[in-house]
């Protein structure tokens, strides 16, 4: 074995020299670079890198564009004596700095700097490294560049106001970094518990859906909302962005006292958030454990199956198919994302009907006819509800081994999974048909029958392809997590390709009835296609079972990672 080290033997009580802050930051930067580089050994990661490069180019264009705009804008403000608007620019910067990292958190790779605590760092170094991490954030880098352009704009237009602008920008940056790190630390604490993580995720999804209703609400209750906003506006002077803008504006006008008061306000923000962050980091430094405790649930007094009914409600199914179906139902109930994705389609159908239809809607005076609207909504339903099927083993994790260890063929497993998908689609479809019927009116019988047959064709056809995709391009996903929770690039590509092809074909067939003056023709064509799709589906199950056997190592490797 090769020599490890030929240096002197360490004396008891004499450790090596501790690296300074700069050296530690350099080490952390090296660590992050190596993690990124080593991650690229994986072929999929290389594709991800391509995505990063493409999005990097777009981001650079955005940052440069806003930099130029802010330079010109600041110069204009000083040239034209509109200093009171500086607060609005700072408000935009504040919103960007605090909201963008939260939006990005779901997609960007994360590195927990708390892991550095295992090394001999003192608390002040830990605190500073934490802040330095905040400054290395993409949003922070962009905001700093933009503030530099504001300082440059001030220098060009009114050199005397430049020192004030520089001082305010520095304080504003310090405040933003502190707040961003503080929010991040609080969020990390909140999200460290699985249940709160899932609850928050559910709230996030629902709020995103609720945002869709903003436009209709504003259209209907615009005047009342405007009155509320006008009442709130005067209180915006309490925001740090207003203090920052006001300070520069007053200083440029030589009004020292109001300027100093605004500066004081900004300093109070920096001090308060700095103290709060100090307190949070002190707890982390003291060894606060954020991870999930072991078996936190309350103890049950009886065994679970006591007093339970032994009759099998799924006895009409083979036991293995029934077992997989039950397991899928349990997983669905415990997967907030999937669960909420089921709630969304009816809400969106309601939303679209409010926006587009002529019967009860307000956005369009004469909306699309039910013959057009109904198939459109059903296509949307299939698009949303079929998406998870293209990576249907995503949440199995290590459980995939149980499938391969069990004395079952994969056709039973696929049947159990597909059965639940089909059942969900049927229920959602029934609900949405009722909704569309109520909101937009019923389509003509030929279109109704054709659409229903088209759905059978599309769903069953897609299930066959989705099963193949799930076995061929598996990607692990974790419950209640947003970060990195995407299907593999190939399955996304496949899904969109298939959906586009099927939607296009279906639309052509639907219109063919109109063009050829034969209203029942689409229904007949779709019925034949649906029958073919069902036959193809059952014929594919054995081939897919063989494929699963061939791909089992890929599946296990991808899902047990």
């Amino acid at each position: 074995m090769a020599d490890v080290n030929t240096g002197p033997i360490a004396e008891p009580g004499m450790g090596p020299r501790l690296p300074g802050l700069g050296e530690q930051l350099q080490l952390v930067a090296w660590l992050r670079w190596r993690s990124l580089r080593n991650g690229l050994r994986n072929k999929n990661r290389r594709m991800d890198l391509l995505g990063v490069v493409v999005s990097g180019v777009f981001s650079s264009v955005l940052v440069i564009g806003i930099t130029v705009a802010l330079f010109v804008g600041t110069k204009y403000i000083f040239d034209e004596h509109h200093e009171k608007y500086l607060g609005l620019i700072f408000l935009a910067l504040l919103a960007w700095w605090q909201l963008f990292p939260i939006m990005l958190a779901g997609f960007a790779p994360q590195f927990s700097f708390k892991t550095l605590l295992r090394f001999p760092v003192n608390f002040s170094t830990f605190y500073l490294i934490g802040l330095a991490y905040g400054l290395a954030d993409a949003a922070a880098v962009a905001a700093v560049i933009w503030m530099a352009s504001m300082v440059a704009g001030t220098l060009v237009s009114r050199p005397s106001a430049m020192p004030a602008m520089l001082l305010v920008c520095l304080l504003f940056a310090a405040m933003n970094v502190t707040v961003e790190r503080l929010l991040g630390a609080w969020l990390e604490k909140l999200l460290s518990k699985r249940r709160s993580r899932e609850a928050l995720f559910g709230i996030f999804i629902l709020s995103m859906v609720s945002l869709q209703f903003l436009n209709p609400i504003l259209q209907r209750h615009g005047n009342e909302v405007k009155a509320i906003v006008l009442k709130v506006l005067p209180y915006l002077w309490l925001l740090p962005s207003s203090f920052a803008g006001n300070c520069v504006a007053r200083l440029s006008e030589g009004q020292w006292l109001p300027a100093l008061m605004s500066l004081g306000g900004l300093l109070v923000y920096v001090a308060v958030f700095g103290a709060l962050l100090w307190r949070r980091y002190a707890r982390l430094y003291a060894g606060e454990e954020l991870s999930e405790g072991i078996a936190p649930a309350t103890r049950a007094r009886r065994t679970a199956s006591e007093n339970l009914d032994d009759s099998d409600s799924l006895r009409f199914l083979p036991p293995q198919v029934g077992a997989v179906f039950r397991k899928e139902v349990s997983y669905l109930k415990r997967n907030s994302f999937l669960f909420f994705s089921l709630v969304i389609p009816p809400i969106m159908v309601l939303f679209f009907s409010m926006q587009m239809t002529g019967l009860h809607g307000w956005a369009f005076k004469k909306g699309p006819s039910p013959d057009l609207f109904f198939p459109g909504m059903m296509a949307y339903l299939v698009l949303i509800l079929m998406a998870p099927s293209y990576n249907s083993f995503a949440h199995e994790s290590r459980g995939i081994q149980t499938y391969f260890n069990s004395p079952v063929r994969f056709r039973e497993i696929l049947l159990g999974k597909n059965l639940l998908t089909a059942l969900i689609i049927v229920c959602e479809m029934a609900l949405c048909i009722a909704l569309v019927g109520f909101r937009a009116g019923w389509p003509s019988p030929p279109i109704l029958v054709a659409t229903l047959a088209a759905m059978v064709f599309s769903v069953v056809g897609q299930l066959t392809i989705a099963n193949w995709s799930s076995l061929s391009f598996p990607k692990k996903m974790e419950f209640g997590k947003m970060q990195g929770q995407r299907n593999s690039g190939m399955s996304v590509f496949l899904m969109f390709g298939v959906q586009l092809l099927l939607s296009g074909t279906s639309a052509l067939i639907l219109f063919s009835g109109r063009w050829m003056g034969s209203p029942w023709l689409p229904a007949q064509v779709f019925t034949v296609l649906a029958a073919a799709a069902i036959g193809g589906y059952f014929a594919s199950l054995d081939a897919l079972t063989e494929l699963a056997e061939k791909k089992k190592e890929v599946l296990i490797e991808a899902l047990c990672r």
Partner: protein
Amino acid sequence: MADIAIATEKLTRKFGELTAVDGVDLQVESGQFFGFLGPNGAGKSTTIKMLTGLLVPTAGRVSLLGMDFAEHPVEVKRQIGVVPEGMGLFERLTAPEYLEFVGRMYGLDKPTTRKRSDELLEFMQLADRSKTLIADYSHGMQKKLALAAAVIHGPRILFLDEPFEGVDALAAGALKELLGRMTERGVTIFLTSHVLEIVERLCSHVAIIRRGRLVSQGSIDQLRAGVTGAEGRTLTLEDIFLSVVGEGADRPQVEELTWLT
């Protein structure tokens, strides 16, 4: 001649250029408590994965209870129970839900599955955690549940990959007794563990794998007899193991870490 429960012929598995398992010929009789040993990276897990159908051999064949695994995978799987590396649990189920799922996958009817599930959960001291998700279990609790799932259908061969890792001493004692009684009833147990004391106490027969090749196989007494230098002292399994795999260039030399020693 006794029935052969597990037999492999020239079992080989390659990963690209690397040959992880190289022509392994194993023979395990029915009712044996068989220990499969080897240093890290020797090919133990790869072998057990091939024996349980999680990995396809590059060459060679696996025969369990006289049936060729490749030809009769479903029939073979019906007869075996596995605690795989990583345990293979569905973490979003509760323990009773998981046991019911496994029982049904093995074709047990619902009342039988329920009854066995309750008894196993009591035995594994998991009954009072029956409403907790498996994801929230400790490592030891997950291990006990994986063991319960591996035996719920009454297998004739049991494959255990590090079964006692993280399990408390009290439960481990009860489990060892259970496994001992299973072998008395003719169940074959194939176990891998790095804790040689456990293997020595439980197993009657042992095989040792090194760099993908089987270097020793037989009863512990046979292995003991094959090792030189046993002057006046009964060799432990650790002595045998070190003698077979730990000598020569493979064994790290502590003396080289001069700055620590």
